[in-house]
């Protein structure tokens, strides 16, 4: 229970002034610009866009600046902002197969049509701190090579052609897509709602759950069939224009996990799959999401549901870091009356205890 307490206004105002000063830091140091954050802390911006569930680099950069680099606070700010804008509608589902690929790797096939493209990656770096970065100075211009127009089909499409992997579920029409920002989540949730929940879920939470499946808590033998990052065109069926208008392109990371195969008396064995999709270059997030998506399909695929990552209600109810931080952090709000009643009860119980057992009390003393 919370009680309205007056009298803190001045302290609050001054605390916010102090916060603004602390945010700015030493005023002799140049102030950060949003462009600097967007360009040089790009992966933090990507994470805020993904988990804030709002694709807008500039707003995510502003949120990071305002939150002093606290990404969960920044995500909270972005979520609050999106509630102020009207929704025009939903895009046509994006075609990740037509992605202008900036990175694309497969751990299942060495030679894939379109090739393995490393792109801007931390992989194969030595994870040694680079003192040169502490100084300013521009890096070398990137190397270039002749780009090919060859298509880069999804690895899962290749496996599908031979019937080696299960088909994705296909709905009759896309009008009934679940939206957890409009309807409260109920269980069991459809895979559409699960994926929406995971797409905005906390990266750390998904990472830990994904890791747990690899360590045996809901094992499902994953291979990273393909990870791709790049730009995808978005189209929106504009009622006023009367056709699907292009909105521009968004950067997305997609992960296709290829998982343990399954067959039955009537069906030939084939690989199963887990899927991850996130805004920006968010590889760890997309991979973790794909692992957890697959784990959450345990029941559908006739597997025992024993591990946390397979427990839909547990995963989906605790994945959202804005909800989680709200509930954890609310503990710092005044609970004076609650606590007084607990204190009163405790004193009463202690008094009764002492009355009933005076000898124990003496012994204790």
């Amino acid at each position, binding site marked *: 229970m919370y009680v309205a307490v007056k009298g803190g206004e001045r302290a609050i105002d001054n605390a916010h002034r102090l916060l603004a000063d602390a945010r700015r830091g030493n005023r002799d140091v140049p102030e950060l610009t949003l462009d600097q954050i967007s360009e040089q802390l790009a992966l933090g911006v990507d994470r805020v866009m993904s988990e804030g569930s709002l694709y*807008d680099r500039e707003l995510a950069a502003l949120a990071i600046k305002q939150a002093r680099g606290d990404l969960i606070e920044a995500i909270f700010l972005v979520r609050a902002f999106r509630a102020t804008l009207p*929704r025009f509608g*939903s895009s046509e589902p994006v075609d990740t197969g037509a992605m202008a690929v900036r990175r694309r790797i497969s751990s299942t096939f060495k030679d894939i049509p379109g090739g393995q493209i490393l792109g801007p990656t931390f992989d194969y770096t030595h994870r040694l701190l680079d003192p040169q970065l502490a100084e300013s100075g521009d890096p070398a211009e990137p190397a270039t090579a002749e780009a090919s127009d060859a298509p880069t089909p999804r690895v*899962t499409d290749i496996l599908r052609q031979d019937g080696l992997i299960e088909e994705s579920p296909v*709905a009759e029409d896309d009008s009934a897509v679940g939206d957890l920002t409009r309807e409260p989540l109920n269980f069991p949730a459809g895979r559409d709602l699960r994926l929406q929940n995971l797409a905005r879920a906390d990266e750390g939470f998904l990472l830990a759950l994904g890791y747990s499946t690899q360590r045996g808590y809901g094992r499902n033998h994953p291979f990273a069939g393909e990870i791709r990052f790049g730009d995808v065109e978005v189209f929106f069926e504009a009622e006023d224009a009367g056709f699907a*208008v292009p*909105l521009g392109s968004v950067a997305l990371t*997609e992960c296709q996990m290829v998982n343990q195969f399954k067959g039955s008396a009537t069906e030939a064995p084939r690989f199963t799959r887990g899927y991850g999709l996130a805004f920006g270059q968010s590889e760890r997030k997309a991979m973790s999401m794909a692992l957890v998506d697959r784990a959450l399909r345990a029941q559908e695929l006739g597997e025992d549901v024993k591990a946390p990552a397979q427990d839909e209600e547990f995963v989906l109810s605790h994945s959202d870091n804005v909800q989680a931080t709200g509930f954890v952090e609310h503990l710092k709000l005044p609970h004076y009356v609650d606590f007084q009643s607990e204190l009163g009860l405790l004193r009463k119980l202690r008094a009764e205890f002492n009355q009933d057992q005076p000898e124990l009390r003496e012994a204790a003393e």
Partner: protein
Amino acid sequence: MAMHAETQNSPEQAATARRRAAMAVLAASETAAIGARLDTLAPPAFTLLREPEQGLVMLRGRIGGDGSAFNVGEATVSRAAVRLASGEVGFGYTLGRDRTKAKLIALCDALLQSADYSAAVETEVIAPLQTEVEAARAEKAARTAATKVDFYTLVRGEG
């Protein structure tokens, strides 16, 4: 440019395809660049049929990349609609919160449908912007291509 496969057998469909292609170029361009090129045309007066406004579009993906749809998250979008004195109505949509850009796209779309301005918009605005957009994409693609892995097998020693 990822355009949807459409049979363009009627003039109307061809006109729509042309407008969509122009919109894609404009959405990928900078506001200042669009404005500067439009200014050289001395565009006619127009009224705002829809005040430029900001909103959201829910971005959808497909389960497994190719299955049924799901909601990934929203994106900010700006839109506008304009009407030329001669009656043509243009629509502007773009990712982001730049209302001026939405208005300029709508104006270009209206001009593209106007007999008097269509050719000029195509050659003075869309074509040069398309060249810039394609150059930027080509540079990105070339840098990406340099990170493509060329596997080779080491010759194994005999014996």
